[in-house]
């Protein structure tokens, strides 16, 4: 069972080599994951903030309930099922959705799934702060917006950065579900090419390496920002773990 790496230089029948196709597939994986990350961060942070709003007005109470519903909806359904709902079920109910490209649907599906998890992290990050911080901000006359912008969120984001790193890496790996709705990304590439070339081991070795490299790059970028964002004097995980 010798390995034959030159399989990647063969023509796939459509005028490109399997290597070229692999880079296209990698591009799709990164585009799906990248776009879904933006959707997840924007909607996740919004929902996370809404869940922690002071419960003093009727509007705020409704917004918190809405965000709570959002989180429970998207985290209680398996991600692959959610993708199928977006792709097959919703267009049955709203026929105009039939025209929406699969890429958009999978980005929304993955993004909203991840947003529920980010929202919960952010809520935990905000609620982990001493209540005095919020009261202090109110005491100096900050509006709710200013309280979040200048007092709560800067610290909360720094607190949740490590799990946010894991979540971003997860999102990249979860993007493999996109193959189920006809996005020509890496997992689909692997399944298809091993069938066409009968060199499954070579194909899976390389595709695994690409996933690992991509996820690790996400990790490094996030770690870079974690270092740059750290506030001197504030406790960081790396500083207290000296006992190992």
């Amino acid at each position, binding site marked *: 069972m010798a390995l034959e790496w030159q399989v990647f230089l063969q023509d796939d*029948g459509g005028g490109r080599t399997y290597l070229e196709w692999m880079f296209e597939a990698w591009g799709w994986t990164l585009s799906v994951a990248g776009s879904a990350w933006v959707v997840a961060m924007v909607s996740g942070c919004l929902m996370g903030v809404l869940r922690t709003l002071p419960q003093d007005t009727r509007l705020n109470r409704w917004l918190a309930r809405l965000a709570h519903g959002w989180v429970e909806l998207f985290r209680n359904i398996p991600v692959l099922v959610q993708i199928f709902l977006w792709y097959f079920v919703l267009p049955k109910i709203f026929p105009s959705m039939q025209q929406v490209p699969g890429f958009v649907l999978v980005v929304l599906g993955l993004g909203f799934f991840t947003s529920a998890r980010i929202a919960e992290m952010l809520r935990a990050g905000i609620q982990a702060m001493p209540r005095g911080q919020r009261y202090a901000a109110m005491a100096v006359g900050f509006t709710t917006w200013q309280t979040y912008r200048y007092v709560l969120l800067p610290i909360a984001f720094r607190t949740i950065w490590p799990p946010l790193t894991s979540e971003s890496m997860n999102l990249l790996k979860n993007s493999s579900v996109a193959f189920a709705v006809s996005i020509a990304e890496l997992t689909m590439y692997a399944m298809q090419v091993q*069938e066409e070339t009968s060199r499954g081991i070579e194909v899976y070795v390389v595709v695994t390496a690409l996933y690992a490299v991509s996820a690790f790059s996400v990790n490094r970028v996030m770690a870079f920002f974690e270092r740059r964002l750290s506030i001197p004097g504030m406790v960081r995980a790396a500083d207290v773990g000296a006992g190992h």
Partner: protein
Amino acid sequence: MKKHFLTLAFTALLAGSVFAEPNDTIAKVKASGSITMGVRDSSGALSYTLGDGKYVGFHVEICQNIIANLEKAVGKKLEVKYTPVTSQNRIPLTENGTVDIECGSTTNNEARQKQVAFAFTTYVEEVRIAVRANSGISAIGQLNGKNVATTTGTTSVQLLRKNERATGVDFKEVFGKDHADSFLLLESGRADAFVMDGQILAGNIANSKAPADFKIVGEVLNVEPIAIMLRKDDPAFKKLADDTIAGLAKSGELAKLYDKWFVQAIPPKNIKLGLVASEATKGAWANLNDKPVEAYAKK
């Protein structure tokens, strides 16, 4: 230390062939008293499960005939173990000896012949187009600008690609993750056509909510010899398998088995596929051979 280990692991990986044992399936099953049959969960009427660990189908039944002859050759009753395989793992599992005989829906092609051996071709698959009956599509030329579904991990994807390049017909490919999914693409209107092996199309249509809403149209896009897969370099076992198939073909039993699985009602739902043997399949029975798909294309 770590580096040494890595080098060692890599060398072991590359030198895998050095440790390969000689392939003598007959001696192997004689010693162990059991044989492992690789089967598919849902490869149309060729090989599928009834649930509960039971596997049936045209190729499964041919394999049972081969095993009956194998039992005569080794002079004792063999325990038959069924191992479900997928398109992804069937070749490695046959190569490494997990599976002794694979009775699924494997296309015999040149690339695979470098890794495994095939018994005489027992079924010739024709790749066709299924459409919704009211779509008005009747040939591949009419698919210009349409969405065409096919299943990830099948040779039909590559076939479409080649066809598109050769004819200049420009269609958009959509991929289902399995055949049921691809059929759903057609059923839900996300795709206008589903290009796949004829018997899979027939099976999906027969099992759908409204079989009359779909039809198989157009020219045969490709023919592929489907055969039972064996380990490479094991001439004695291959001869036994080939002789069994030749015996079945000569007595007319092969045609009867075909009729039983592809024309008559089959379990579990007692649905008829109604797929009479094609000229290509009959040709393969008349002139038994183990030629790869490439030999068919040259004709």
